[in-house]
């Protein structure tokens, strides 16, 4: 009797622990070997056959196709440099340098990877269309309401994700230091 009770208890706990851990890792996006530059994180290996099992499972669950290693690399940011989570009701300013790449794009998504509907049909900027100052620098303002210059609308959603994709770049698995790949700084400018 005690054996039966014990094994039932064990199996229940095991199932709860195991499935809970799987759900947690796949919804929170736990993946190993991230290349972190400031608030930006990339997983260059996810675009190759060396993709780790957690990233494989996550990609299969969400239905996305990772950026291939010979194509480019995608950096994800969910917070600013100070660790404040991206809130679409706040204003964030992105400025600084980008690593060498033939082209780049920066896109705003919902946490599920969907675009956010807005009146000006603006979801991203490419390196070609962004408005720069005389020194070639740029500033992007991510905000719910219209701003002058490079305005990326948030649509006022609670949480958003920014993805910075570098195409035809040397940044990848071998990149170790932030010196090789300076990524733009992100700062919150009020809510």
């Amino acid at each position, binding site marked *: 009797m005690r054996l039966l009770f014990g094994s039932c208890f064990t199996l229940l706990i095991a199932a709860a622990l195991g499935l809970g851990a799987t759900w947690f890792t796949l919804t929170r996006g736990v993946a190993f070997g991230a290349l972190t530059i400031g608030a930006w994180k990339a997983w260059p290996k996810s675009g190759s056959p060396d993709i780790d099992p957690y990233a494989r499972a996550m990609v299969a669950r969400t*239905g996305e196709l*990772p*950026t291939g290693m010979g194509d480019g690399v995608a950096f994800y940011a969910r917070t600013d440099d100070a660790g404040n989570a991206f809130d679409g009701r706040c204003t964030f300013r992105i400025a600084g340098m980008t690593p060498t790449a*033939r*082209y780049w794009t920066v*896109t705003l998504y919902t946490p599920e*990877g969907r*675009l956010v509907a807005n009146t000006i049909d603006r979801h991203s900027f490419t390196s070609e269309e962004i408005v720069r100052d005389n020194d070639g620098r740029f500033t992007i303002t991510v905000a719910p309401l219209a701003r002058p210059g490079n305005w990326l609308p948030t649509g006022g959603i609670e949480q958003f994700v920014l993805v910075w994709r570098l195409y035809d770049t040397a940044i990848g698995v071998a990149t170790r230091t932030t010196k090789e790949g300076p990524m733009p700084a992100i700062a919150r400018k009020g809510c």
Partner: protein
Amino acid sequence: MVRGLLWILAAVLLGGIVHLSTVLAMPQAAKQDAYSRLAQLTPVNAMVPLAATKAGAEIMPFMDPAFAAAVCRYDLSGGPLKLIAPVSQAYTSVTFYTRRSIAFYAINDRAAGRRTIELDLMTAAQHAQVPEDEDVTAADRLIIESPTPMGLIVLRALAPEPGLMPMARQALAAATCQIQSQ
């Protein structure tokens, strides 16, 4: 007391096994992975342009809206596949994915080094059957081995600004992927 701890230890160990096996089984079990989504929209062994990435009409999550994309959902059981893709003015890339969304090969227009990207996709068994002299004479022939008989070829062309999207889409429209009869 000791017996209780043993039960808990067993539960944690078993939980770890459950966790690892579910993570490993996820790619096989997923019903909404990229291949399944595209299977409803695309025929086999033909290059099909995808609808523009718009809010509320995304085919897959985290697609780059600055790109026009076309997909060839391939099945190599009938023979090797030939991909011909003219490059657009800005930036064009080809990425090969297995049935389980693993990007096993990617190349861009500059690496391909020509006005047209031409690739032969085949399984390891089909590659072994390619006559050796043919392999040598066609030195510029790029052969890619697919780890799985089925998968996806995704062709992407960048529109550096929204006004250039028709140009990018036009470049993709001329791309083909066809089974080569053996």
